Every structure is written in C-alpha cells, then in structure tokens.
C-alpha cells in the first residue's frame, strides 16, 4: 500500500492505496465522490475527465498512488466553487444533458476550454469536445450551451 496525501476539492486527504487503484475508483470507492464516472477504463470515452494539478486528464488512466502532493478537482468541487455556474445553467437551459452520465466529464472539459480564454468558433468547440463521448444528445445542445456561455462572458469569435 502506498501512502498518499493530496488535495481533493480543496480538502486535504490522506490515504493508503493499492497501486492498482485508478483515480476514479479512489474517488468513488475511497472518498465516496461518485460524480466522476468510468465509462470505458481505457481512456477513450472521456466520462472520467477531471482536473489534476489544474489540467484536465483521464482519471481512469492515472494511478492514485502517483498523486502524492497533487491537487484534484472533481465535478463536485468544480460545482461548489461556482467557477462554471453559468455553463451549468446553460446546460440546463439548453437540455445539454439527457442521461447525464457523460456530463461531469463534458463539463470539466468545457470548463477547461472556457478557462483557456479565447473565442473559439463552433467548430473549435466541437473539436475541443471531440474526446468526450455522448450517446444521448448528438452534441449540438452541448455546443449550444458552451457557445451561450462564451457569449455571455463576452468571448464571441
């Protein structure tokens, strides 16, 4: 078992973990943070996308054991911070979430796009989200929600 101390959603967490534990299972099983989802466990679907040390990554492709000293932000923490409350409200208004399983990963990815600043076009928004699988929406409402948020932040192309 490997001892790790890291920050999760602003809280210091100390645990012992098996090397075989990926970050998503650490969050879900050890910390009860079930907002992060595993959809494929091979890094392709994007459902597990969350923020590690300020950047989005695939939680299913990270060893919890490697995160000593790391800073992790999950959808729960991102929501509590209010950083993308406008994006989340846009998701509600545009019905950009249907079953919701992809949504945490989608919101985290869109949040990084918004954090980068810039004024992406619809095509660039689609490109940025191209690693997040959604089976329900067909993506258009999600792009609409991101675009609405950019517009309300004054970041139109």
């Amino acid at each position, binding site marked *: 078992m490997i001892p790790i101390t890291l920050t999760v959603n602003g809280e210091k967490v100390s645990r012992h973990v098996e090397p075989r534990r990926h970050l998503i299972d650490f969050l879900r099983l050890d910390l009860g943070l079930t907002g992060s*989802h595993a959809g494929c466990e091979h890094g392709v679907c994007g459902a597990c996308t969350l923020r590690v040390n300020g950047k989005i990554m695939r939680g299913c492709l990270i060893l919890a054991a490697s995160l000593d000293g790391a800073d992790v932000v999950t959808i729960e923490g991102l929501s509590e911070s209010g950083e993308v409350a406008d994006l989340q409200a846009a998701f509600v208004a545009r019905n950009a979430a249907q079953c919701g399983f992809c949504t945490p990963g989608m919101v985290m990815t869109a949040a990084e796009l918004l954090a980068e600043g810039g004024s992406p076009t619809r095509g660039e928004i689609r490109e940025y989200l191209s690693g997040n*699988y959604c089976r329900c929406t067909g993506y258009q409402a999600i792009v609409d929600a991101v675009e609405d948020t950019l517009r309300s932040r004054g970041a139109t192309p």
Partner: protein
Amino acid sequence: MNEITPASIGLSREDLPNSYIGRSVPRPNVPKLVQGRATYTDDVTLPRMLHAAFLRSPHAHAKISAIDTARAKAVPGVIRVFTGHDLAKICDPWVATLDHLKGMKSAPQYPLPLSRATWQGEPIVAVVAESRAAAEDGVAALQVEFEALPAQTDMETALAPGVVVIHPELGDNLVFTRTAETGDVAAAFAAAHKVVEARFVTGRHTGVTLEPRSIIADYNPADETLTVYHSTQAPHMMQGVFAKQLRMKEGDVRVICKDVGGSFGIKVHVYPDEVAVAAMARIVGRPVKFVADRFESFVSDIHARDHRIKGRLAVDAEGRVLAFDIDDLTGIGPYSVYPRTSAIEGNQVVNLCGGPYDFKNYRCTTTVVLQNKTPTCQYRAVGHPIATAVTEGLMDLAAEALGMDPLEIRRRNLIRDDAYPYTSPPGMRFEGLSHHASLNKLLDLVPLERIRADQTEARQRGIYRGIGFASFIELTNPSPFMYGIGGARISAQDGCTVRMDPDGSIVASSGVTEQGQGTEAILAQIVAHGVGVPVNRVKIITGDTQTTPYGGGTWACRGAGIGGEAALQSAIALKQQILEVAGAMLQAAPETLDIAMGEITDKASGKPRMTLFELGRIVYFRGDTLPKDLQRELVQTRHFITKEYPFAFTNGIQASWVEVDPATGMVKLLEHWCVEDCGRVVNPMLVDEQVRGGIVQGIGGALYEHCVYDAEGNLLTTTLADYLVPMSAEMPEIHVGHVETPTRESLLGAKGAGEAGTAGAPAAIMNAINDALKPLNARVHEQPFTPERILRALGTIA
C-alpha cells in the same frame, strides 16, 4: 439554480391553466446531472455488498469440459464461485418465443450454461468477491477447459444442409420466418415500366450506453425478499422475470431504478449475467453488484441490425409504385433474447417496408437464423432503419431509372394527408399521418435551390456533394398487439397516481421510466397542467415497483403517449376531487371553480378564492370542519391503454447534405434536417433533442459502428478504439421541424418521438452519398458506409 416560474417560460396568468403542454420547460433533473449529484446504480453501496465478475467464453462455440475453481476460491477477497449447475438449482431457464410469431423456436437459456458455450463472451463461471478487482483476480485464477466446436457464423449458410446446427433439439438454425403478401406481386412486376433492385446490408452494431449495464441484487433471507437496483427500462417486467426465474412471489421482489445512464433498448432485455447476479444474491443472502465493463459490454450487450436484404421495386411510367418485393435475412445469436424475442426486428422489417407509400402489391419475407455470435434484440428504432433504408434506397433507384427528381417520385407516392384512416399493404393501420405536410415543411427548412446550385458548382471543382431524402413511418404507443398477445408479461398499459400533499404540492408516481429523455419532466408538465399548479410544485416518482402503479416502463416510444395520458387523466381526476372539496369549503358548485397556479379560483372571473395550501391544511389537519360525508382523499389513479389502434404510427422525413471525398472515401456530414410528426408535442425542446440524439445514433450505424467478427466467431471490435462511435467533431448541425397530428385515442393526443431520428437517418445519408457519387457511377448500399466500401464502389480498390 433553476427557478421555473411562469414568467421564466413566457406564461402569463391569462394563458393558464392550459399552458405547460407545448412549452420547452427545462428539465428539473438536469441540475443534479451537471453537478455530479445524480445517483446511478453503481453509485449505490449497500452493507456487506459483494461484487461479481464473470469468466466469459473465449470461443464462439465450445463444450465446457472441466471447471476447476480451487485456485479461484483461494484468491484473497473471493467469497464464492458459481457454475451453471450451482445456479440451475434455484433458477429456471427461459425460452424467448412469442405465440403470435408462428412457428418461432428457441432453446432454453440458463443464467450460466450447463455444458456448452454458444457465443464468444457468454458468461460461463461467476466469481463473487469483496471488490470487483478481487473478483477479477478470482476469474483469472479459474481453470476452465473448453473443447472448441465448429461455429456457425455466416447467416447465409445457416440453413444449408450439413452445417452446424447450434441446438440439435430444434432441428435446424431457423428461429422464425414470415412472409406478408398482398395483391399480385408477380403481375405488378410483369406490368412494370421499370424494375429496380438492389442488395442492402445493415451492419451488426450495438448500443454503447455510456453507463454500462449495472445491477445490485440484495436478498434478505429473513423476510425472503429480493430488492434489485437495476439500470433497466422496465422495472415491473424485471420484477416479474426475477420472481419467475427464481421461483419467488412477485410481491417479494422489488426493482428500483436509480438514475439510468442511457438505455436505447439495450437495457430492456433479460441478460443471463444479470439473472445470475440475482440468483447468486439469493444464495449468499447479501447484496451482489455487477457492472459490466466496456469490454464486456461489447461482447455481451445485445447487438442489433445484422441484416442482408434483397429488394425490388416496380414502378409505372408515371413513377407510381406498383409493388415492393423484399427478402430479408438476419442472423441473431444462439438464443432469442427474453422476453421480447429476437424475431421482432425481422418482423418489423416485414411490417414497415414501403411504409410511407400508397400502393397495392407487396411481398416481404423475413428469415431469422441462429449464429454463434452475441445475441441480438431490440435496439432503438427496431427494424425501422433497415426498412427505411431499403424502401428509400429503392425509391431513389426508381427515380434515377425514370429520370425523375427524388422528391417528385415521393410526392407522387406518399400517402395523401387526407387518406386516413389507412391500412398499409402489410396490414399496419395508420390513424393520421402527415407525409405531404412534413415534406412541405422540410422544404421550408432545406435551402434546396442553393444546395443544388452549390452541388453543381462544386462538381466543377472536383468536389462531390450530395443531398439525400428519407421519408419514414415510426411505430409508437404500442398496444398488447406487440407482445402481450404473444404471451409475454410485457405491459402495454400504464398507470399514474397523483396526490396532493398538505402544503398544496403534488406528487405523481408513474409506471413509465426515465433514462434521460425527459420522462419525468414531461410528466411534471402534464400533471401541472392537469391539476393547475406551477410545474415546480410537482414531484415525479418513477422506477420503483413498490411505489409506482404497475406499468410497462420505457420502450417503443410510449412514455408520452401512454404514460403521459395516464398522468393527465389522473391529474384531471385529482383536480376534480380537489374542486369537490373546495366547493364544500367555499359553498360553491365545483363546476364554477377552477385551479390556476396552485389557487382555487372562480372560473368565470378568475378571482382567486383559496390556496391549495389552505385546502390541504383543512383536509389533512382540520377534517373536523368538513361535511361528514365528503369524499376527501386527494389522490387519484388512472391507467391508460390504447384501444383503437395497435400502434400510434408517426411519420417524418429527413434530409442529409454530405460531401464525399472520392480520394479517401471519407464522408463529411455538412448538414441534416428532420421534420417529424409525433402528434401533440409536450415539450418541444425535449422532442428536438430526442430527434437530434436519435439522428446521431443513426449516423453511427450508417457510417461508423460495426461489430466485426472473423470467420471463427471472434469479435474483433472489443474496445472504443476499434468500435467507432460518433463524436462531436464529425457531427453536423441538425435542424428539426414539426407537424402536429394529434391522436384521437387520448386527451393528450401525444404519440412517441424517441426513435424517429434513428429510423430515418441512415437512409437519408445513404441517399446523399449516392447522390454525391452519381457523376462517378458509384453506389453504396452496405452499411456502415466506410471509406473502404466507398473506395471499392468507386473502383479505386478492388
């Protein structure tokens, strides 16, 4: 975050109370989804919960010679190991046939097989452990000997003499065959001005729900009850299935649906591994959880749409359809899937070909055969994409043979909008469709002249663009004619109980279910409308067999039309009951009163008389002040079933604008349009989003998704890297329009909308690709339309 006030969705007091129907009210479910606060089945933890993992057959067909569990049992964390024989002691096998599909046959299927594996991926041995990882360690330590057997993997040879008969006791590999024939097909073809024909193929593919199949079964030996948390579309059906297979009373089984991460039909079927989990829970007396991982999902979720179809169309000199003659062959798995059966998809092809058109002569045969591949069954739009591709592909071929515009040939043949009721050649009864109005509306949306001009100009630059159309019909609001008459305990009726609580808020519990399409949202709108309260004062309960009226759940687009109608009728009945009490309290005749935005009002003047909060206070806490003989239960239940029509058919038309790169065979989707008529639209935004999502799912089958097998029955596409699902960068903008032809079967008038997008998209894309390739004399009819197939059609590769 989401305060749905009347003003926020553009309602004024004067609009009320009849205004939530037809409004794009945001779903109250979404805030928890965007904050990561939903609860999917895998988010549920129960005390002493165990986890199951399965050893799955590596062979398409094999005898199970020996199972040695000793090493597996010794793995740390492993609690029990179960074989087929262990579970057969307490769990009965099932046979998936329907009586009304004459002659249908299928072999009994156990949760884990007793002696033989018949598809690669079939669960063979189960390990139950303290964690999923430990259970997998246990599986890795199992020693199972297989003796590989020859596999039957080619549907075209399944009925040939001398081939492997997968279940010898059935005699052959034929599951079901049916021919529908009307009129005089031979004469029609003989008299035809033009005959066109083609061989169509739809590729086997699967649902890929992002939340995999998930189940927790919890047996309490003290009171002999089984509680199952199940990511399923049909909890009541599953209650019956678990009770039947485990020899329990239905009342002792409870099925609970938490949030479901997508289903699309994948989660409405009975899976052997899930029944195994229930059986194992029964034995160990502790909760057992199983979540299929993605690799398991590819190999064990039901597949669908593995068809080869020969189609012929005869037309006269005016381009009128004289006859369709279709021969459909489909290869399923080694078992028909329970309880809806794997013959329905082929049966739908027979029922739906030629659907939008007015003609007399029809012959369509389906032949459904067994294969040693993953079992197949109903998946979003069941059979419609196939029938629509064949029909619309033949119509385009006929148009070309006649030198006629593809829209013109459709105009000449679409059933007239005033021709209803109408019975189609295969016997489908249509109450009221709007093919022509939909086509006209489509042409309002599609800038066709500009597109054709662009197409011509682009061709001169060596750029090949095309536009394709597809008219379609879609089956919704099913009656017992779909399953019930075949003996299946699948409920076509549905119920809703609506009650008013002391504070004036409304709670409605319904037998239909939510998987993201917005069932709970529209039920809230309907109930709010029916009772007369603001929509955010309505709580909806679904997905619990113990607390909801008996219903059918979600399938064949029945949530709005059937579940919604039950909700409306019970809400109206509750309103009536409330007004009776209000009348007693206000000394007014109930007919002179109304309820608007949670207040009892004077109907004539609109003047508010009393709040529901006040009425609730009196009824629940000061009943002494009411007349002694007054009926005062503020709760009403109504159940609804369709009565006149076996299905509420809907219709639509789609257009796809594409660019094909003849150098690479790559298809770029430029834009997509759909006009559809689902009757009364309860929430336009949700319907549009269902259509968009359905279209993208259809795009998946048309261009990307394919479960590829080798000749030995090994599945080659087992990861999301090999099996390609549609992602955002390649998807077009999709424009949706509506025509509304309500059904008169219900007050609400709603038909279903969930599958329309998927039904028509592949055909529209196929026709668009072929329109693009026309100058190059290339044509494709085999889905998915991969670069390889397009390059082959172009003659670029052999």
